[in-house]
């Protein structure tokens, strides 16, 4: 493994996008960054810029107004990249499955690597999902 690949796996940067979730998973993702869970000690940093990010954390189901935004963000991220979906509704549509504006799970729009179920997913589960994603990142997918 060359040093770029090694440092990518040692310090992955996250991009978080809310696709239409209820906010529950989003605040749990933020909770992961704060003192009790503190994933920053593993070098994981939340970034606002897709061009800097290695992992895309998506919450909520895909819907008509925002699937273009999601695609756009995904395409802007440099390779290699992994996508982690947080929350039951992002995995399958979940409780919103019969809402008229919903397309379904995130995997209908972009390829997904890790699914984290839960409504809302607990911070422990989210961290677990990110660690799984790191394995994929390390192996170059």
């Amino acid at each position: 493994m060359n040093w770029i690949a090694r440092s990518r796996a040692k310090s992955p940067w996250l991009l978080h996008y809310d696709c239409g979730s209820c906010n529950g998973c989003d605040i749990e993702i933020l909770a992961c960054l704060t003192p009790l869970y503190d994933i920053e000690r593993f070098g994981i940093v939340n970034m606002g810029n897709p061009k800097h990010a290695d992992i895309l954390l998506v919450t909520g189901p895909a819907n008509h107004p925002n699937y273009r935004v999601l695609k756009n963000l995904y395409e802007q991220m440099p390779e290699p990249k992994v996508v982690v979906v947080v929350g039951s509704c992002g995995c399958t549509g979940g409780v919103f499955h019969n809402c008229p504006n919903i397309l379904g799970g995130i995997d209908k729009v972009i390829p997904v690597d890790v699914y984290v179920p839960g409504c809302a997913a607990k911070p422990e589960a989210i961290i677990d999902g990110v660690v799984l994603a790191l394995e994929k990142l390390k192996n170059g997918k």
Partner: protein
Amino acid sequence: MARTVIPFGPQHPVFPEPIQLKLECEDERIVGVVPVIGYISRGIEKAAELNPFRNNIFLCERVCGICSFMHALCYCQGIEDMMKVEVPSRARFLRVFWAELSRMHSHLLWLGLLADSFGFESLFMQVWRAREIILDISEMTSGHRIIQSTNVIGGVRRDIDEEMAQKVEEMLAQFKELADRSILPTILNDPTIKERTVGKGILTKEQAELLAAVGPTLRGSGVASDMRMTEYAAYKEIGFEPIVETAGDSYARTLVRVKEIYQSLDIILKALSMMPEGDIAVRVTGRPEGEVVSRVEQPRGELIYYVKGNGTANLERLKIGTPTFANIPSLLVMLPGCELADVPVITLSIDPCIACCER
């Protein structure tokens, strides 16, 4: 001077949620704002007509994850009104307990995001550390950190026993100690916070009334209006006085919320000590018929549910009126005239919850 339009969002580090503000700027000064909403619109109101009315509680809880309890409470109160159900008084006190717990966690979350928006990273971390205590209480009493899901039509699902109440009081004392030591003095005295919030995003009393602002945005402008004054659930027994600030700027709105955290803490302690013995739910049979409007005070302001039933298992119409949607016109008055760098702070000062707003 030439005008530039800067898109602010939908994916922006300040907001956890997508909303777009098209900012029209002359140099660094904002002269016009156009909000673009609809990025996370799901169509919950329509889906509520497709589900049986009892299952709608789960859907209503997921209108917004931060104040999920309030949404379910408002829905259940509406259905109970319609079906003429008398809720046991212990259930009413338990509802107040969880509602105020969600208010505390929502306000703390917001306070952290505000600190983050002007780069006060250590306050953000401190506030979120204190918030974990509240989430632990929530997990202990209801089984989940954020989506408590304890409301049912006719009462609540879970009880709080003596031992648990004791533990809650201990944890709240621990929280109060932490808040008194590190959060409150910083908010009251720190010059950097005042520099960024005092006099920024002013909403006068007349404007607030004219534009129908709600919640802390309205109370920060000197209007004493709070749905808890309508004495739903057990607020009549517990007693309630709204918190009002008169300056109308971002700092006034911050102060209202910080004081409400302490007020909610008192209400929780009172609810625990005054809670009568008895059942926590009554069995409800039949199907809803008629129409009803139900209102509760959410952390962000007044929440309205209009429910219309037609005697079948499915509702004919559910209309949800949320506080962020009501506060956006006020935001459009606050922003023009301010500088580009102040936009995140002023936008956050109305505590936008886009998931609620777009449903």
